[in-house]
Structure formats: structure tokens, C-alpha cells
């Protein structure tokens, strides 16, 4: 069952329109919420006049920051700064509605509650806000200039954070180097754009004094706990349900969004069910973004291609507030090291407040930028040294016998960055063979170029820290019907939790897969855990399911052994029965054991716990490090500079594979987002901080004609950190696509010496870079 190519349990409901998403929740008497948001990136709020809005038809309530009274509060800091060598962190989080000042376009200013969303939006148009516009901090490069406008005056500068981490002594490495390659790199902002936007529905039951919240979040349990605290309720009085969620990719792990704390508060205050569903324009400006860094990096290397050290100093565009701490730039620092031995490393970043929506993790979560820097540095060094770029990588791989491999600096989970296991050469070799690297370079490439085709090949490597702590849990019960229920706190946004967790439980309990029912993301079912992020569902929650199922199996064996007067170890679980090994007739069904484990009369032994049920938790000591290689052959249209991908190969090692069908789907989807990031998607701001392409007509997501067929190969190097040996896979597909495009495009334009140092690209950007390279020659 583990490792089987099993179809998904959740699909029939999704395919027939019978799966509950937040906007599908309908409660009689429900009111609807709209927000009046800031039109300015940076302005003083002079006055907010809601008198006209209050008079509009169907309006039930209108709230400004002032109307929130004591409930107005800056959101909590979700992730504290790391215990790194040198850390400055200026914590500035946002209150739910702006007062005094607005700091990004889209910041909520007024909340309106009305009989319908249409009427609520009419009323939002009737709100009159008087602003005094201020100069905006838009480009991260100028955010720390002496004369830059200040996003938060009381900080005294726009410095959100400053972190320095070192491994070894880079200065000595540089002194011993035969070659130092220095480069400036840029990696600009994009947005996750889940097809389902954010949404919150809240219902207060006045008589039961109980609040139910449906939230399209990746973290229902922390949302429940936080809401209870803010609202002065017990955690038992609040239930948060993340039902089916239409894609998350990171921004739905952010908390607390202002809408998330306002809608439940107003539902209680008005004693009416409330619904707010984000529209697409709001999603562009008010859901968090990612990427946005500028690097000055250098690589110190010997003439035979041994890396001596790397120095990387970068600016990180943090946006207007920093409630998510430093996860993204920390991931950049750690993932820059890749699968390579880097004896000396100096990494320093400054996170800068800007007048834009805040940056929080989006699939890859900072890893992209680090991988872009190291892979581009290696490509540049390979050219200068005259060494094949793949050979250069191979010479620097960490060897299989060097694990666990300690990279010293502090990772996003605050442990000292240590790779648990890995074997990188087979990954490189397989990708190289699958794409036909040698053949293409020797024969096919030259032949196609002779025909006048602008064609290029690329292959890059990466590692990915996955499956971080702190922990997740699962409760598993065999019901008297013989059906098995698995409940866990991590919600699903399409990753197949209903299927993979069922596979694990079915495997451990010897029951058919169709007898396992899974519930996720409902604090009414399970209320310990953190959420779905950092490629950790299968690794952390899956391991908790494994442990709980193991405990239930032991309990079933013990009960069966007692009944049949056998030894515990002679019992095996198979086909829904506990049977004595080698004695086909001697068996009892799990269904009967479940009934016996919950007697209605009589006495039980002291210490007996009722039910064929167990709860288990799993917390890994550190992240599990997956790795992979992506390879591409692409062709550039000489007239339009459109790029057509001819071949795309992914070789991926995420340890034990639980379900290859689902894993391939995760990789495909990641690559599609990576392609968007590399060649289609860039958030374009003007100098006043207005987002110029806040629609799907102007911000281009890859379509079925843009994304090629992706060939996937697997290597399996088990993780020693969990019982099944799994590592995470959710983000892998998206991580190395930028440097891959860059390398292959460099190769296609080798004749003019193109070297790409920025992502995202586009046909027009590529044309500019090619023209620049031609002029320089």
C-alpha cells in the first residue's frame, strides 16, 4: 500500500461539485463583508467619513479603526527572529484597519457589513477618505538610502532586519582562491495566485456561546488558538474549519490577516453569520507576495574547480510589515549552499520595509533565490575555468558517506543546518541521461543550430530543506463498523492528504484502503498541530499517522491475543482481521475488537483505555533534506523571443515515495509555477507603489500551451529522521526553474556571450538582455 500508485479518495466529491469550499458555506441570515482599502502606497490618513456609507441601502454596520476600540491590535509575531550570530529585528506588525497612516495599496481602512456583497461594495464606494500622499519606498535598492521616506517613522530607517551568518572564514578562502567570480543578481516579486482566493465565514452561536469559523487557511489550529485569545474565549469555544481549500502555496499560512480577525469579531458583535470572500483584485494587492531580493555575491574557487568559499550580501524586500519574521531570507541563506561542499561562507542580509504588501513564504519560500545565486555563480565559474558545468558541480558534491553533513548556520527551524542524508551523483547522472546531455551537446545541438535554430540546454541542481518541526499529530480509531478514521490537524490544499494518510493507516492496520476515512483541517476533530507548509505534510503528519496506526495495531493484537489465548507477537493484521499466524481459521475481525474495546457494562482492568483508538505525535529533530536536478532543452523564436520548451526532465529524491501518482502531480505543478516565475510572472509597480498588473489579463499565469510535458525520474535516499524514510516534495518542482532557464538561454545565445543575472524574464526582457549582450561584443 505504501508506494502504490493509488487514485485519490477526495476526487469524486471535487469532481461532482460536492466538496465544501469556504464560499460554499451558506447560513440563513448571513451578512456579507466588503473592505474599503487604501488607494495609496504611502499616505497620512487625514479623515475617514463613513456617514454616507452608513446610509446606503442594506448596510448593517460600518467599522473604522476607531470603532474597533480595544480590539484594534497589531497582529502577533508569527515567527520570532532566529538565534543567529548577528541579528537585528525591528518588529512592526499591522493593526486590522489602518489608522493615522496607510503603508501599502490595498491596506484595509474600513469594514462594511451589508445584506449582500453587492450592497457592501456599493457602500464601500460611498466612504470618503482624505489622504495626504507621501513619497513611497518601492524599490528595495533605495529603501535604506539616507533620504528615503520612512515606512515606520519610529524605526528611524527602513531596516526591518539585519542578519549575518558565517561558516568558516571566507576572507582566508578568498585569499587562497585562483579565481573569484563576483556578480549582481536580482529576483523580483511574484504572487502565488491560488485559483480560490482567501475567504472567511464566521458564525456565533449566542446560546451555546460557541464560534465556528470557516477559513481558507493552511493553519486552522493556530488560527483557532489565536482567535480565542484575541476574542477572550476559551479555545474550546472556537472551532476553525479549513474545508477544501482551492490552492494555498504559502500565502494562506500567513496569520493573522486583518480580515481573519475582523470577520469573527463582527459576527459576535452583530450576532449574525458573516461572510467575506476576497475578490481577485484584493488577492493581488492584499494577499502576501514573495521573492524580491537583490544579491551581491562572489565565489572563491581553485583552478581545478574546487569551491573554497562563497560570500553573499543581499537586500530582501520585506513589504510594509514583518509578522512572518525572517523565514524567507533565512531559507535563501541556507539553500544557497546546495548539494555542494562550501567550506567557508559569509552571508548577510538586510530586510527592508517597503510600501508594498508584505512578503511571506510562497512555494519555495526563499529557496529559489539562494539556488539561483549558487547555480549562476557555478555556471560563470565553469565558463571562466573552461570546465564542463556539470563536471564542476560533480567535483563539489557532498559525498554519501559525509552525512549527516553540518553546514553550521542557523536554518528556518532554528537548528544548525544539517543535511540528514543524500546521494547526489546518481541524481545528476540520471537527469543527464534522461535529457541526453552528451548527445545533445555533441551532435543534436550543433545540428539544430546549423539549421538556424536558437536552441539551448540546461541542467541545474538544488537541495530542499523539508518536513520541519515542530510537530503534528494524528488520532486513529477503528469504529465498530470496522471502518478506520484518521484525524489530523494539517489541512489539505490539494496535496492528497485524504489518500496518502489513508494509505499509511491501511498499510499499518491491514485493512482495505476504502475502509479508511480521513478528516483534516477541522479543529473540532483534532486540535494540536501547526499547519501545512514547508513540504511537511507527508513527512511530519504522515509520520504521526504512522505512529498512531502502529499503536492501534498493537492494541488490536493485544486484545486479539487475549481472546484467542495466543501470544501478542503471533497475531497479524490482514484484510480487516486479527489472526493467529499460520492458523487461517483462528481470527477475529477488527470490527468485533472495536466493539469489545468499548464495553457498555461490566468491569475493565485498571489502566484500560477505551476504544481501538490511539493518538500520536511526531516532531523531527530537524528538517529532512531532499534534492533534485532539473534539465531542459528550449528553443527561442528569433523574432518574438518567445521560448518553447522542447524537453523538461526532473529527477527528484525525496526519500521513500508514498504515492508516485501524487508525487508526480506535485512535481508537475511545482514546475509549472517555476516556469511562471522564470518567464511569465512579475508584479510591476510604478514609482508611487501602484501595482500595474493586478489582473489575470496583465499578470500572466502559464497555461496548458506554455507548460511542457514533464518527464519525472526518482531516486530514493531514505531519511533517517522518520520511520518511513520520507522527505517532503511539495516545493521541489518550483525551486530551480529560474537558474535552469538562465543556463539554457545562456547556452542558446552562447555565440553572443549572454549571461542572465535576473529573474523573472519575459520575451521583451530577454530581447533587452540579448540586445545588451550584442552591443557589448
Amino acid at each position: 500500500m505504501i508506494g502504490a500508485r493509488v487514485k485519490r479518495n477526495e476526487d469524486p466529491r471535487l469532481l461532482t461539485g460536492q466538496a465544501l469550499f469556504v464560499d460554499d458555506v451558506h447560513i440563513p441570515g448571513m451578512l456579507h463583508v466588503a473592505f474599503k482599502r487604501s488607494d495609496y502606497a504611502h499616505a497620512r490618513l487625514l479623515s475617514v467619513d463613513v456617514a454616507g456609507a452608513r446610509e446606503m441601502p442594506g448596510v448593517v454596520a460600518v467599522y473604522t479603526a476607531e470603532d474597533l476600540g480595544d480590539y484594534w491590535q497589531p497582529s502577533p509575531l508569527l515567527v520570532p527572529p532566529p538565534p543567529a550570530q548577528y541579528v537585528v529585528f525591528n518588529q512592526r506588525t499591522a493593526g486590522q484597519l489602518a489608522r493615522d497612516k496607510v503603508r501599502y495599496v490595498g491596506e484595509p481602512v474600513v469594514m462594511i457589513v451589508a445584506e449582500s456583497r453587492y450592497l457592501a461594495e456599493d457602500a464601500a464606494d460611498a466612504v470618503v477618505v482624505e489622504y495626504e500622499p507621501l513619497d513611497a519606498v518601492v524599490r528595495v535598492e533605495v529603501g535604506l538610502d539616507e533620504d528615503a521616506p520612512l515606512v515606520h517613522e519610529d524605526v528611524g530607517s527602513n531596516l526591518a532586519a539585519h542578519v549575518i551568518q558565517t561558516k568558516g572564514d571566507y576572507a582566508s578562502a578568498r585569499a587562497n582562491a585562483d579565481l573569484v567570480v563576483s556578480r549582481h543578481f536580482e529576483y523580483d516579486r511574484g504572487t502565488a495566485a491560488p485559483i480560490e482566493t482567501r475567504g472567511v465565514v464566521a458564525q456565533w452561536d449566542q446560546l451555546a456561546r460557541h464560534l465556528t469559523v470557516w477559513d481558507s487557511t493552511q493553519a486552522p489550529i493556530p488560527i483557532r488558538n489565536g482567535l480565542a485569545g484575541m476574542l477572550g474565549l476559551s479555545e474550546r469555544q472556537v472551532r476553525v474549519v479549513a474545508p477544501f481549500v482551492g490552492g494555498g502555496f504559502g500565502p494562506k499560512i500567513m496569520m493573522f490577516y486583518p480580515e481573519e480577525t475582523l470577520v469573527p469579531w463582527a459576527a459576535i458583535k452583530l450576532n449574525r453569520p458573516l461572510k467575506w470572500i476576497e475578490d481577485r483584485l484584493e488577492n493581488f494587492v492584499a494577499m502576501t507576495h514573495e521573492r524580491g531580493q537583490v544579491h551581491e555575491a562572489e565565489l572563491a574557487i581553485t583552478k581545478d574547480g574546487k569551491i573554497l568559499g562563497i560570500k553573499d550580501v543581499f537586500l530582501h524586500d520585506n513589504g510594509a510589515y514583518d509578522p512572518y519574521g525572517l523565514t524567507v531570507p533565512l531559507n535563501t541563506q541556507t539553500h544557497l549552499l546546495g548539494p555542494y561542499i562550501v567550506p567557508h561562507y559569509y552571508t548577510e542580509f538586510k530586510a527592508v520595509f517597503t510600501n508594498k504588501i508584505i512578503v511571506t513564504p510562497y512555494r519555495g519560500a526563499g529557496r529559489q533565490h539562494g539556488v539561483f545565486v549558487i547555480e549562476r555563480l557555478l555556471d560563470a565559474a565553469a565558463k571562466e575555468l573552461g570546465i564542463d558545468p556539470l563536471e564542476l558541480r560533480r567535483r563539489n558534491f557532498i559525498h554519501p558517506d559525509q552525512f549527516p553533513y553540518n553546514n553550521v548556520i542557523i536554518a528556518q527551524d532554528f537548528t544548525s543546518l544539517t543535511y540528514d542524508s543524500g546521494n547526489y551523483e546518481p541524481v545528476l547522472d540520471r537527469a543527464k541521461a534522461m535529457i541526453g546531455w552528451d548527445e545533445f551537446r555533441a551532435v543534436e545541438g550543433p545540428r539544430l543550430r546549423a539549421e538556424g535554430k536558437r536552441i539551448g540546454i540546461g541542467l541545474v541542481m538544488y537541495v530542499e530543506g523539508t518536513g520541519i518541526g515542530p510537530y503534528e499529530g494524528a488520532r486513529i480509531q477503528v469504529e465498530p463498523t470496522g471502518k478506520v478514521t484518521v484525524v489530523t490537524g494539517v489541512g489539505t490544499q490539494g496535496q492528497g492528504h485524504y489518500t496518502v494518510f489513508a494509505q499509511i493507516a491501511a498499510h499499518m492496520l491491514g485493512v482495505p484502503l476504502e475502509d479508511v476515512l480521513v478528516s483534516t483541517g477541522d479543529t473540532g476533530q483534532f486540535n494540536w498541530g501547526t499547519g501545512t507548509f514547508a513540504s511537511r505534510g507527508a513527512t511530519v503528519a504522515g509520520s504521526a499517522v504512522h505512529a498512531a496506526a502502529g499503536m492501534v495495531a498493537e492494541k488490536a493484537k493485544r486484545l486479539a491475543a487475549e481472546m484467542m489465548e495466543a501470544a501478542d507477537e503471533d497475531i497479524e493484521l490482514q484484510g480487516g482481521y486479527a489472526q493467529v499466524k499460520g492458523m487461517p481459521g483462528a481470527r477475529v475481525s477488527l470490527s468485533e475488537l472495536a466493539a469489545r474495546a468499548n464495553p457498555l457494562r461490566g468491569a475493565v482492568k485498571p489502566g484500560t483505555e477505551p476504544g481501538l483508538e490511539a493518538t500520536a505525535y511526531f516532531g523531527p529533530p530537524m528538517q529532512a533534506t531532499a534534492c533534485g536536478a532539473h534539465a531542459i532543452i528550449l528553443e527561442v523564436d528569433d523574432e518574438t523571443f518567445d521560448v518553447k520548451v522542447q524537453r523538461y526532465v526532473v529527477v527528484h529524491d525525496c526519500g521513500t515515495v508514498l504515492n508516485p501518482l501524487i508525487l508526480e502531480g506535485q512535481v508537475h505543478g511545482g514546475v509549472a509555477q517555476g516556469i511562471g516565475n522564470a518567464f511569465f510572472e512579475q508584479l510591476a509597480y510604478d514609482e508611487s507603489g501602484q501595482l500595474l498588473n493586478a489582473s489575470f489579463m496583465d499578470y500572466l499565469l502559464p497555461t496548458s500551451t506554455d507548460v511542457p510535458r514533464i518527464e519525472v525520474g526518482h531516486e530514493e535516499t531514505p531519511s533517517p529522521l522518520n520511520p518511513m524514510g520520507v522527505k517532503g516534495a511539495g516545493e521541489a518542482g518550483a525551486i530551480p526553474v529560474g537558474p535552469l532557464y538562465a543556463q539554457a538561454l545562456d547556452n542558446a545565445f552562447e555565440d553572443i556571450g549572454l549571461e542572465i543575472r535576473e529573474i523573472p524574464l519575459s520575451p521583451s526582457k530577454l530581447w533587452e538582455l540579448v540586445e545588451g549582450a550584442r552591443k557589448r561584443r
Partner: protein
Amino acid sequence: MDHVVDVEVNGRGYTRDVEARLLLSDFLRHELGLTGTHVGCEHGVCGACTVLLDGVPVRSCLTFAVQAAGRSIMTVEGLSGDPDDLHPLQSAFHEAHGLQCGFCTPGFLMTLLPFLEENDDPTEQEIRLALSGNICRCTGYQHIVDAVKLAAAKRRAGLTTPAQEEDVAGEAGML
């Protein structure tokens, strides 16, 4: 001023008084309770809200409910709204893992139904062109393309209704 809309949806007649500005997507979802049709962008790009209006795929977010008066609509629930009894097109998506979060899926299905009626043996390129007006953020489209090939094969084999589809969809469930 409200307007009377008489409309047939999935073979059933409905009469409602609606505002002229009410979107067809909101009408289907919130007036009729047919929440299988999803709204992704409300500006006609993502295709999640696609339904059939007199057999032709339309963006229900760019259509007013009053424009559907006197006409016939089919939504995903009209393919099959029963998880235990999938239409062959739905079961092809299940078998090929043609969905992840599933939010965009109803729009894909409603785009594909008339496409496969016109062309039951499409090439990969024809499939990709047919899908190019629907955005999926999860799958990278590859398994969707595979699902369409499978659905076309089912159609060529004479499978066109849920009753004929003997796939074991819905064999396992969730709480």
C-alpha cells in the same frame, strides 16, 4: 428594479426575481445553491466558472443572470452531482489524477464536454489548445491532458453517461 428570470438548469426549471446586475455565477451559486461552479477571477480569464448556456461554454462571471432568461444551462452537477456515480469524463479525471485542489476542475469539465462531442479523438496539441482558456495552478496540466485522452477513449468506446461508467469512483470516502 428586479427582473423575472425563468431558466432551466440541469433539466430543472427555476423562476427567480433578480437584480439586473446579478452575475450568472452568483445566481447559480447563491440563489440556486449549485456551488459546484466556482469563481476564480470574476474577469473572465481563469475559466473556473465555465458553464454551458444552450450547450455552449460561457464564463458565468461575465454573464448576467437576466441574460440566461428563457435559456438552458448545464453546470458540473448536471454531468453528475453524485460522487458515487461519476460521468465518464469525471472518472477519467479521477483515474488520471487530473486535479489537485479541485477548485478549477468544474470549469475544465464544462469546457471539455462540448469539445469532446465535437472531437472524440483529439491530438495532444488540440487538447492543449482546447484547455488554454482555463487556468489550473496546481497540476501543470499534464495529468489533465492525460485525463482528456482517457475521456476521449471512453467516449469512442461508447461511454457517455454516468450509468455506463463502471469505474469504482467513490469507493473510498472521507469523514
